């Protein structure tokens, strides 16, 4: 292979990662964990450059080839370990966020020890020749402890995947499950690339495939940003519209659309400020997640103080049951948090079955109308003294 080929192999993935980095920086700066993702992208970009030089020094005859090979290989192995550790750390933060107990945090901090140890061994390679060495003819050889470096990198990756797998068993929301899947898939591509590279030494695929994996992960990361409402972490209206179309075309029959409106939300907002209003929205969203999380219901924020749910149910009484549960949950939440205002919901629903219903618009309108009727009824009832 010629020099220009080597340049191309790493240049295109590098270009891709630069684009991703720039995009993450400008568009997702406020998103939690985006910074960690950014760093990961930066590290892999750096790795691609090192990888390119490594091949270049190995293949093209050089002056001072011996020293150059020593330096570049040390850098290469260091980066490999650091990238694996960063992936591990990213996954842990993505899974548990800030919900870690103190002892878990401590344990997490100790996880860096293998990384530091292996890094020291790598840096001292010219003296201990444990991981690799370059002989007098500038030829690269594996050292006696070469497997240690592989084990450390793999260890971090596999532990991360194991944690994801364990967490997936616990999650109830389908969106969360999808996120876990994305975290799992991402590791597969570098493994395939690495395997191919082991089979044929000339296939320089490990790091380009890692770059592709980062892009794949970016796609799911971005989809979450697009389809989730930032405040409540429920699906947003755009996603609901997509889901309704999907539901209409599916075989399921019948199903229900529920519209939920917080009573006197405007008053909470005006009297206690926007912050309280946001809090009220979060309370309702959480109640929805807890009551309906492990059913197949689709939860979304429709906009303002309105929520919409798509529910698989056969009869009206099933829906009424769900509504009862929901109201109970919210009442309990309000008393627990000692709020100065009370939250009550007006809920309207409509049934979709293929024989009677003509369009989604009719369904939406019907559910909406019934919600307003209930709201009005509730208002009238409260006006009657006694």
């Amino acid at each position, binding site marked *: 292979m010629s020099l220009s*080929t080597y340049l191309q192999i790493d240049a295109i993935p590098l270009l891709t990662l630069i684009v991703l980095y720039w995009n993450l920086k400008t568009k997702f700066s406020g998103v939690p964990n985006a910074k960690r993702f950014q760093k990961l992208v930066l590290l892999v970009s750096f790795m691609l450059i090192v990888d390119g030089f490594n091949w270049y020094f190995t293949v093209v005859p050089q002056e001072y080839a011996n020293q150059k090979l020593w330096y570049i290989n040390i850098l290469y192995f260091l980066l490999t370990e650091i990238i694996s550790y960063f992936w591990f750390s990213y996954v842990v933060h993505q899974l548990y966020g800030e919900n870690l107990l103190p002892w878990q945090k401590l344990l997490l901090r100790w996880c860096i020890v293998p990384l530091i140890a292996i890094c020291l061994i790598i840096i001292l390679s010219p003296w201990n020749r444990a991981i690799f060495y370059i002989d007098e003819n500038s030829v690269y050889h594996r050292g006696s402890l070469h497997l240690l470096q592989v084990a450390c990198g793999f260890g971090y990756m596999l532990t991360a995947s194991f944690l994801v797998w364990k967490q997936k068993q616990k999650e109830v929301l389908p969106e969360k499950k999808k996120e876990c899947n994305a975290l799992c898939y991402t590791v597969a591509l570098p493994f395939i690339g690495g395997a191919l590279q082991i089979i044929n030494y000339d296939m320089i695929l490990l790091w380009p495939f890692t770059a*592709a994996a980062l892009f794949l992960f970016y796609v799911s990361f971005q989809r979450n940003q697009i389809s989730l409402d930032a405040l409540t972490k429920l699906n947003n209206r755009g996603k609901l519209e997509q889901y309704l179309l*999907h539901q209409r075309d599916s075989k399921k029959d019948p199903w229900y659309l529920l519209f939920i409106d917080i009573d006197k939300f405007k008053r909470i907002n005006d009297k206690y400020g926007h912050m309280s209003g946001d809090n009220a929205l979060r309370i309702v969203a959480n109640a929805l997640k807890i009551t309906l999380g492990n059913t197949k219901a689709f939860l979304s924020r429709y906009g303002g103080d309105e929520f919409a749910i798509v529910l698989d149910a056969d009869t009206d009484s099933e829906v009424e049951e769900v509504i009862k549960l929901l109201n109970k949950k919210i009442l309990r939440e309000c008393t627990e948090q000692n709020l100065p205002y009370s939250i009550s919901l007006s809920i309207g629903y409509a049934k979709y079955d293929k024989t009677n219903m003509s369009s989604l618009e009719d369904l939406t309108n019907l559910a909406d109308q019934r919600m307003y009727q209930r709201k009005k009824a509730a208002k009238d009832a409260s006006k009657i003294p006694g």
Partner: protein
Amino acid sequence: MNIVAHLNIHLFPSILLFIICISTHRERIRTTMDRLFQNVLWCTFFILLTDMFCWILDGIVFPGSYVLAWILNICYLIMSPLISALWLNYICFYLRQISFKNLISRKKAVIISLASLYSLLVLISPLTGWVCSIDDHNRYQRGPLYFIPYIVTYIFLVSALVLSIYHGHKEVLKSRKRESYTLACLISLPVIGEFLQLMIYDLWLALPLTAISALLFYLNMQNHQITIDSLTGLNNRGYLDRYLTERNLQNEIPDGLYLFMLDLDHFKHINDTYGHPTGDHALIQAADILKEMFGKTNAILARYGGDEFSIIKQCRNDREALHLIDSLNKAFEAFNQEGTYPYTLSISSGFSRYDSSCEHHLEKLIENADRMMYEQKKARKKS
């Protein structure tokens, strides 16, 4: 060049494009533009694969290899101009909402006959060897007319580039102008790649750079979804929050920056009496009035949520801000006087000035504007 080298070069862009294709496929296609984009993506993906196999089989002899090589090469030569034509078509639609489908039938006929002429030229190559030929060792050889596919491809790409630059130049609305120039930048990548590949024989940059360009198009589209409110086409609340916090952190907010909060009066009433679709329509009308007033200025327009809008704009002093609100009210009155719709629109508004004293209290900024707005609303209700 051997097989492995071509795998190395082409596998990554193929995977990249495949991921993009799949992820756009999973989203439900809503507009003609999405569909056009998807067609371009899939075609680019397939040509990448074809190209890879062309190179891998180059110089390898086995039973049937000669026929296979011809099939692959002919596919490649016909698809390559087709794809740049699809890109041009997509750009035309993006900029002017004109695509091949909308052309009058005479123009269509001309384009189709030119295309079939070109295809014929390529198809008879096994007999004539004009464009290319394949020798006894199953190697690709350039024919005397080898440059024709390059030139045709190039003409389409360059016209797409020229078109987007020309449009950017002509456009008055700032956001549209920026979009056109972005398109021009994106389309220039394959142009550069194609050029380099023609000049330097062992650089295979044309298709990989096209893949990068597709990536940029894709990200551009997705970013649009993240920052834009889908109903009104204004920026969404997330964008506004990010804009303010980022500028605040970098101390980039210039003096005399004003935040305006607007609230549609009686929106709930419109929603309740005429239903949600009409309510949505009212919001779109209100957004259009704002766009018309501020489209050519530096102001940032956003839908803050529900029936609330916000504007960020630089003003010299409070008087100018008040004047601005005055002209806004007038614009809404003008809309009402036209009387095309069953409802009337009016707004309550408030503003607050950003100065260095409230540096770390963006919440305050919004709150102040909000309070002023509610006071106005209350006052109106009383009168």
